[in-house]
């Protein structure tokens, strides 16, 4: 474990908390997001999200400025809510805070309660979430918002046979795959937050608020579910939506790793099998078979991989698992946020490994770059920030996570399920092969030919 005690953060690995909150709200049907703070925050979040999703992503701002910060931002917040309601006519408005709003001590609950009490525009649910950017990254913001959304609608309901599925910030393609697997296994579910359509719209008639998202009715019934499957091994208890459902409504929590990787997907399908009572259907069994076949075909190439894996904790853990089960033992594992849970899990995962990887939390790319150099990493898995590794060390990056802004299709990156895991493995292995084919002749010449040609063979 690198024990750099540097103060300065050099080339950031994570983004800020309110962004996570905003993205979670985009998974609720008919929702708009509003950021209570300076305008720059929402515009930059839009820029980052737009470049990744290649979708118009409208995020409103209360446009706080100096006047308001002395007297409080209530006036601007009200005006902002009025305008959002008028233009977008949303069913839900998620209001996240910024470091500015939190520092001046805005009482979101009180202000929104007062607003909804008086407002003549009925029908919109306004849900505040505290997401000060100095208290966490977008991963924490995402959990916090999901928890707040559930809490807002939670009330005692009749028990039913459906299952809750709570996801971290994965790609829309992964969401669709998880849903497909559950459909194939015959399990009824409510997945939250479901932005698989809202942040990835097929071309057609354009509307200001994208169709799709988890409905409010379904969210309200989450308290009566049979169980909650939460992909949150690294989610801290105080932010855990699934844990609060268990503690307050007795819905049993099943905390699983993201179904990325053979073992992780097996755990998911086995859990679904127990819940739904059905065995693995032929379609999925075949996909599993193809994955196994692919793992065998590629195992020797993959054994040459020494990956650096970085990004949001839940994703990092899942991809580390895939690498380990294919013999591509990670050289370094890093996350930009604080996550002792991630580090503990990865240590367990790599207990048997010959060489222990460098483990980094609160990492920046200066640290990751250094670790990559020390460990002779030859491939990276993570978001576009890793292009620094390519530029400085020729380490190719297999992109996943957020943001992927220097390639197209960030929203379509599929890594979940058997099919997705195989798709990822192909990308991973082929990246290694591409590099190998491009360099091996030269390397062999330098390494071996040069030794004999000195003796004057030519």
């Amino acid at each position, binding site marked *: 474990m690198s024990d750099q005690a540097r*103060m300065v953060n050099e080339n950031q690995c994570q983004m*800020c908390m309110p962004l996570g909150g905003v993205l979670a709200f985009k998974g609720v049907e008919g929702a708009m997001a*509003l950021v209570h703070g300076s*305008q*720059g925050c929402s515009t930059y979040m839009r820029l980052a999200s737009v470049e990744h999703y290649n979708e118009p992503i409208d995020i409103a*701002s209360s446009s706080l400025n100096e006047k308001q910060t002395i007297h409080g931002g209530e006036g601007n917040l009200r005006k902002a809510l009025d305008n959002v309601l008028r*233009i977008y006519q949303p069913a839900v408005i998620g209001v996240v805070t910024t470091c500015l709003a939190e520092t001046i001590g805005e009482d979101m609950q009180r202000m929104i309660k007062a607003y909804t009490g008086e407002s003549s525009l009925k029908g919109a649910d306004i849900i505040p979430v505290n997401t000060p*950017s100095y208290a966490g990254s977008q991963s924490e913001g995402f959990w916090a918002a999901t928890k707040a959304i559930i809490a807002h609608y939670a009330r005692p309901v009749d028990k039913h046979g459906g299952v809750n599925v709570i996801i971290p910030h994965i790609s829309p393609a992964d969401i669709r795959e998880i849903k497909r697997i559950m459909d194939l296994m015959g399990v009824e579910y409510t997945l939250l937050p479901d932005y698989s359509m809202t942040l990835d719209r097929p071309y057609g008639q354009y509307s200001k608020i994208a169709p799709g998202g988890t409905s409010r009715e379904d969210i309200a019934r989450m308290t009566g579910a049979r169980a909650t499957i939460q992909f949150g091994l690294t989610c801290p208890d105080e932010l855990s939506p699934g844990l609060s459902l268990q503690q307050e409504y007795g819905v049993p929590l099943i905390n699983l790793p993201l179904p990325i990787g053979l073992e992780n997907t097996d755990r998911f399908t086995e859990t679904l099998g127990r819940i739904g009572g059905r065995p693995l259907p032929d379609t999925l069994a075949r996909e599993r078979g193809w994955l196994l076949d692919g793992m065998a075909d590629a195992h020797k190439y993959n054994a040459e991989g020494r990956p650096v894996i970085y990004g949001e904790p839940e994703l990092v853990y899942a991809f580390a698992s895939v690498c380990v089960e294919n013999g591509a033992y990670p050289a370094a594992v890093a996350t930009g946020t604080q996550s002792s849970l991630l580090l503990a899990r990865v240590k367990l995962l790599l207990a048997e490994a010959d060489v222990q990887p460098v483990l980094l939390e609160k990492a920046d790319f200066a640290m990751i770059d250094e670790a990559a150099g020390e460990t002779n990493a030859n491939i990276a898995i993570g978001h576009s920030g890793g292009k620094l590794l390519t530029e400085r060390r020729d380490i190719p990056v297999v992109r996943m996570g957020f943001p992927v802004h220097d390639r197209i299709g960030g929203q379509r990156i599929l890594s979940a399920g058997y099919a997705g895991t195989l798709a990822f493995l192909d990308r991973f292995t082929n990246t290694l092969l591409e590099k190998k084919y491009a360099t091996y002749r030269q390397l062999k010449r330098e390494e071996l030919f040069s030794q004999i040609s000195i003796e004057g063979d030519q």
Partner: protein
Amino acid sequence: MDTYCTLPTVPDTLIEDRQGSILTKGKSKGHISCTSDSLAGAVSQRACVYCGARVVLNPVTDAVHLVHGPIGCATYTWDIRGSLSGGSEMYRNSFSTNLGERDIIFGGEPKLSACIDEIVAKYSPPAIFVYSTCVVGVIGDDIIAVCKEATLRHGIDIIPVESSGFKSGNKVVGYRAAAEALLKLIKPVEGQVVEPSRKLNFLGEYNLGGELWVVKRYLREMGVEINVAFTGDSTVAALKQAPTACLNLVQCTGSMHYVANQLEKTYGIPYMDVNFFGAENTAESLRKIATFYGDEEIRRRAEALIERETGRIRPVLERYRKKLAGKRAAIYVGGAYKAAALIRQLRELGVEIVVTGTQTGKKEEYENLSSMLSEGTILVDDANPAEIERFLREMKVDIMAGGVKERVLAYKLGVGFVDHNHDRKECLAGFEGAATFAEEVYKTACSPVWKHLKKTSEEVRL
């Protein structure tokens, strides 16, 4: 007050308070309402003061750019500007003091000081720009004092940039903060002699896609040397030579007019507006520069260059003009300078402008823009997505020119797009840039994809 005529208002699509910011040429009376703070909740495309300061200063290649605040501001602006460098790549690194909860409560000054020390120990940069962000203003960190102390401690320029984002919703204030920082950087020290030269400075040129280098080449051919651009491909050392120039060219007026004014006041350097976007604009600007120098040889070379280059690209422009005639364009960009440049460049290609807007235009600038436009064109200040969506539909726009946030909306509506944004990779300046521009407009406006999309949007409802 005169009534403002806007599009037929459908309730709940346009905010009433925005009416004054949307005019239709020939139909609306009075001036456009602009340069005010954005409306809360309107989803303005504008960013913040820090944004304005960062985009202006970031291209200073060998300086360290340190953002004092929580992590977000730095992450969002890491390497997002397409400015190219011929030398140092230090500016492509993003440094943040990453203020946490403790720092917010107890103050971030010690951390800032420590971060500066770390940076100097690791990189020995010639200068450090320290940007303040929203929270820093609120918690009362005195970055000016910290920078002053650090400057004495390390013997290099450590310059505070007062860019606290909440000062105003308008990033133009950020331009000003950046300007003050630059002026501080280039101020000669006590007793330093400023030796005047025949070189010029190029203000408001950020070397996106190498555009500075194209202009440099033209000027060199004419016999004129650029000292430094503010701030494209600039170094701290070259910027410090700025007071020696005999002329300042100003391209992006929004960000640099203030600087030009101050340089004239303080160092007696005159300035002139130039515009290297579009063949005609480029020729005009080169001639203006030649006239300023009053040298017959420079003038002769300028004419030779103009003749040669315009001749070279004429067939290219002709070819594309044929295919683009009658296409309708919408422009929504950051500043009026860029909007004016685009209007001319698109007109050169036979494209009709039906919508024009900016984030930060001033009253006189809008009047100038309006004079360039035909009747029925919509003029808009500080537009939001709902308005842009309406204009694109109702004005039957074929292509749009703007930034990243506008691009995705345009594609969703089946409208082609010309990237004139902060991170563009293509060189669009000078004669060759005019040819590249024409090609880019053509590739998007005449792409085969649109006919499929148009057909589908009529059939499919999701």
